[in-house]
């Protein structure tokens, strides 16, 4: 476990040293933050590298931090069956630029998680094959997991069907 962790950090630093913003380990969960521009390239590398071989993208998680320097974070929960190792790959998004390349062509299983993030946060995944809302109605105008969306909902946000 320790060995593969060292190898992962080393390989990432060697290939994408400039793009790595932080490497944090908290309560046994390893989190690596990378620059948004390189996210697709790094994902392709992690999937394709024979030693690391992260063949499962278990989840894509959106977080709204409402901070001045960045608004959203995307967290990729990556798992390698071969190495039996998991870590969280993170990237930051500004509110003014909500587009990010989709990773569905690398991991088809990221399809629904990405739709979920789009539905809840309004982050747009470029190149996603089927970017539709997944939980909310098609004509819903808001993004309910953003922090400014009230817990009780916006009255009248889901209109009654026309007769």
């Amino acid at each position: 476990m320790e060995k593969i962790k060292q190898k992962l950090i080393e390989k990432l630093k060697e290939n994408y040293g400039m793009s790595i913003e932080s490497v944090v380990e908290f309560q046994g969960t390893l989190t690596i933050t990378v620059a948004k521009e390189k996210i697709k390239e790094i994902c392709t590398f992690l999937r394709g590298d024979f030693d690391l071989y992260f063949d499962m993208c278990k989840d894509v998680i959106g977080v709204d931090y409402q901070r001045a320097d960045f608004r959203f974070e995307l967290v990729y929960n990556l798992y390698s069956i071969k190495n039996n190792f998991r870590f969280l790959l993170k990237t930051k998004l500004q509110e003014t630029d909500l587009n990010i390349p989709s990773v569905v062509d690398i991991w088809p299983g990221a399809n629904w998680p990405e739709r979920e993030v789009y539905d809840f946060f309004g982050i747009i995944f470029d190149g996603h094959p089927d970017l539709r809302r997944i939980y909310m109605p098609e004509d819903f105008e808001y993004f309910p997991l953003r922090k400014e969306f009230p817990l009780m909902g916006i009255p009248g946000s889901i209109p009654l069907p026309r007769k």
Partner: protein
Amino acid sequence: MNTKSKILQALENQDVSVYFDDPLENDMILNMGPQHPATHGVLRLLIRLNGETILGTVPEVGYLHRGYEKLAENMTYHEYIPHTDRLDYLSPLANNVAYVLAVEKLAGIKVPRRAQFIRVIIAEMARIMSHLVAMGSTAMDVGALTVLLWGFREREKLQDIQDVFTGVRFTTSFTRIGGLAQDMSDEAIAMLKNFLDQFPEKIKDVEGLLFKNRIFIQRCEGVGVISKHDAIAMGLTGPNLRASGVAHDLRRDEPYLIYDEFDFDIPTYDDGDAIARFYIRMEEMKQSVKIIRQALEKIPKGPVNAALPKKVLPSKERIYGKMEELIHDFMLINFGINPPVGEVYQAIENSKGELGFYISSLGEGAPWRLKIHSPSFINIQALPVLLKGHLISDVVAIIGSIDPVMGEADK
């Protein structure tokens, strides 16, 4: 202006590689669910058909959506425990365990050994309870109603044990951050031992009824096949992944609680079809019995709650008698446990697959963000792959075999 709804457009845009010569060229769109009895709750499938052959499918979820992730951001960590019951309502005990493990990891709480043993026991009980329903409903969907009744008969016995154990039959909310709501009584242990003694016989009955039954086998064998490669790519977990030949089980791969102290097997099948997924669940129930037996033998005496007054709720008797405990209880209930700043991910091997909680904390009483990685959501995602090229009558067998629970798929 295009008047077609987006879901219909998505279905028509889907890449279809199975072609059949049809002189009439009459592809038909069939809506299955959300009220169809075989769609396990509120799953809706839009199916594009050529005759009786499925060309493409678009699954649609969201009819049940209750906004559990938004709710979590607005309540303390303790308050959220009852909501975890409502996720996978067929195995609430295991969901309770998964959630508190994530919070404990975040806050760095270590739970006493006896509590860990009891958590293993209840998680495995939950697995059996869930698999019994999965087994019964799959069999019912393909025509064997008896197995559903047998499954529920056994589940009923377990629910009686759960009643003695936790005080409720359905939504348990049994775990607490740092321990459990209460200790296991001797009566519950005796009942559980009785159940374990007679249960393997009952599994044999089911096997005797189904495994030489031509109708059952022919409706499930070779149906809904997913290869090892596809199963990994689609992110399948749990029995559905193991039925495709991948021996991935978090109880062994990322041991939590004390699973590394028990001796059990991880059954796998290579076929990846509906019957393999059925076999896997039968085998897993036997393994769960094995684990519970070992846990009951080895279970030590001692407390079931960690002695951390700032993080773990004190017992009611102490609150009534001591000022300190009353203050701690007040602080915990009103302001929460305030774990450190950071983010964690903790998953357990639930009956449906990997159930994980991602928590991002800013040091406040409530999580800043709580994301539930629910196995049914991901498993349903693979339905288009499983259904393609099969007949319309196979749909019920395939949906049943992946065992979706819409409570956690829709969250």
